[in-house]
C-alpha cells in the first residue's frame, strides 16, 4: 500500500483534546461534523487546508490523553490518510489502527510543513519527496497491517470471525 500526500506539521505531545476538543466531541456521533473542528485549537485553518490523503506529521507522544476514539475518527473523516510521529501514546495508537488510520513511527524531525511524502506501509518506508530523503521507520507488525487493510478491527473481525495475534 503506497500512500502519497502532503505533510501538515505539528509539535510534541499533541493530546486528544487538541485533536478534537471536548467542546465538540461529546455533542455528536456524526464524525463528518466533528471532522470540521479537528486540530482547530492548534491550527484553526487546518480543516480547510487538509486535502484528502494528506498526512499529519508530529513529534513525540502524539495522541496522549483520553481513550476516546473520536480523535482518530475525526482525523480520518477530515481526509487524513495517516499520522507520522516520533512516538505515539499507546491507547491512541491502538485506536488509530483499529479504525483503519495508519500510525507510523519514524524520525520526523526533517519533515517540514507542506513537504510531499510517500509511505509504503508494508516496507516501513517513508520518503520525503520534497527533500529527496528517506526516513528510518519501523514497519508495523503483520496483524496491524492486516487490520489496516480491512479498514479496521471490526471490519477485520466481521470478515475473519476473530483476531488472533499469537
Amino acid at each position: 500500500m503506497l500512500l502519497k500526500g502532503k505533510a501538515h506539521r505539528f509539535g510534541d505531545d499533541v493530546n486528544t483534546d487538541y485533536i478534537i476538543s471536548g467542546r465538540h466531541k461529546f455533542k455528536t456521533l456524526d464524525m463528518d461534523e466533528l471532522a470540521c473542528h479537528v486540530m482547530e485549537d492548534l491550527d484553526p485553518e487546518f480543516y480547510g487546508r487538509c486535502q484528502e490523503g494528506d498526512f499529519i506529521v508530529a513529534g513525540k507522544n502524539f495522541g496522549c490523553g483520553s481513550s476516546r476514539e473520536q480523535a482518530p475518527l475525526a482525523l480520518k473523516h477530515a481526509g487524513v490518510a495517516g499520522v507520522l510521529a516520533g512516538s505515539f501514546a499507546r491507547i491512541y495508537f491502538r485506536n488509530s489502527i483499529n479504525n483503519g488510520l495508519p500510525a507510523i513511527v519514524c524520525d520526523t524531525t526533517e519533515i517540514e510543513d507542506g513537504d510531499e511524502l510517500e509511505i509504503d506501509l508494508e516496507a516501513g518506508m517513508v520518503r520525503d519527496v520534497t527533500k529527496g530523503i528517506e526516513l528510518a521507520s519501523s514497519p508495523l507488525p503483520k496483524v496491524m497491517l492486516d487490520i489496516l487493510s480491512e479498514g479496521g478491527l471490526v471490519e477485520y473481525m466481521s470478515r475473519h470471525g476473530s483476531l488472533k495475534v499469537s
Partner: protein
Amino acid sequence: MSQSRRILAVHAGRESVSPGELIDVGVDLVLANDITAPLAIEEFNKLGVDVFDKSRVVLVLDHFTPNRDIASAEQCAFVRRFALEHRIEHFYDGGEVGIEHVLLPEEGLIRPGEVVIGADSHTCTYGALGAFATGMGSTDIAAAMATGKAWFRAPEAVLINVTGKPGPWVGGKDLILHLIGVLGVDGATYRSLEFTGDGIAELSVDGRLTAANMAIEAGAKNGLFPVDRPVVEYLEGVGVKVAECALEPDEYGYVGEMSVDMVSLPPQVALPHLPSNTVAVGEAPRVKLDQVVIGSCTNGRMEDMRVAAELLRGRRTAPQVRLIIIPGSPRVYRRSMEEGLFDIFLDAGAVISPPTCGPCLGGHMGVLASGERALSTTNRNFTGRMGHRESEVYLSNPAVAAASAVSGTITDPGELR
C-alpha cells in the same frame, strides 16, 4: 517476570510472556461509559453477536449525567436501551451512578489478579487493588464485549520503590504527581509502573487508587500495587475474599527502577498545561483562583472528602472563589452526609455536586470562562480541559485544594491561618 506480565501470562494460558510480545488475553471485566459506550455499541452491533458474558460487561453513565443536554441525553438513552436489551447486570444509571473508577472497587467488581479493560484512559486505577487494568478505545471494547478477549503487547515494567511515611497533607496524589514530573507525560509509555517498598504500607487504599489512576498521565499502560493487608481488608469490606499477594520483583523483570522518599516530599502542584509541570506547593505561583474542584476518579473518595472537611471546618471560601465538591459515588455521598461533612462544606460556601465527571473534562457542573483559573484535584490540565481554551487548570491533592479555596490562591495547607 513483572507482576503485570504474570497476570497477562495466566490470562493468555502461558507460562510466561516477554516484553514486546503480542498476545491474546482473556479479559475478566469490560467497561465503558456514556461517552465511549455509544461508539462501542455501534461497532459491536456490526458484529451481530450477543455479549460474551452479561455479568462481565459494566456500563456506567457518569460523564454527562444527570443529562447535560439533549445530545448527551440521546447518548445515555442509546446505552440504556442496549443495557436492557442485553440484560447487562452491572448497568449504573440515575441514583446508582458513581464516577466509574470510584464506583467499581466499591461495588466489589475489582479482584486482584484479574484483567480489566475499559474504554476510559483512567481504567488503570484498579491496579491499586492488584488487578491488571488498562484503558482502550471503543472498538477494542466492542471486540471484547463480543469475544471476552483482547490483544496486548506485553509491557516492560519499571519498579517504583516507595519509602517512608509521608508528612502531613501529603498522599497518593503527591506521589504520582511527583513521578509524572520526573518521568514526563510520555516517560512510561507502554510500560507498567509497579509499586513496591515500605512506603506503600503508609499509603491508604484510597491514596493508592489515586496514584494508580494517574499512571496513564506518564503514558503508562498500567500501575500496579501489592495486595497487602489493607487491600485484603478493603476487599473484604466490599465482599471480595482474597489472599495477600506481594509483588515479587526479580532482577530480570524490570527495565528500570525509581525511588521516591515520601518523608521529604512536599505537596505537589501541576501547573498548566501538562500534568508533568509539577512543582512543590511552595514554589507554585500565587495566582488568584476563580474555582476549586474537589472530586473526580482521582480524588473523589472518602479520604479525600475527610481531608477537605478537616481544612474547611469553621472556615469560608475566599470571596469570588467557587468551590465545587463532588463525592465520587452514592456511598461516598451518603457517608459524607452521615459524617456531617456536608454541613462543613455548605458552611464553607461550597456547592455539593452529585457524582459525575462533570467539570474535569469541561463537560458541565463547573465549566471555566476565558481567563479563569481553577485548582482541581482531577488528573488533566491540558489547554481548555475544563472549559474555555484561554482558561487554566492547576492540579493538586484535596488538602491543597481546600486550603487554596479558603485563601483564594495556591496555598500550602500547613500554612493556612
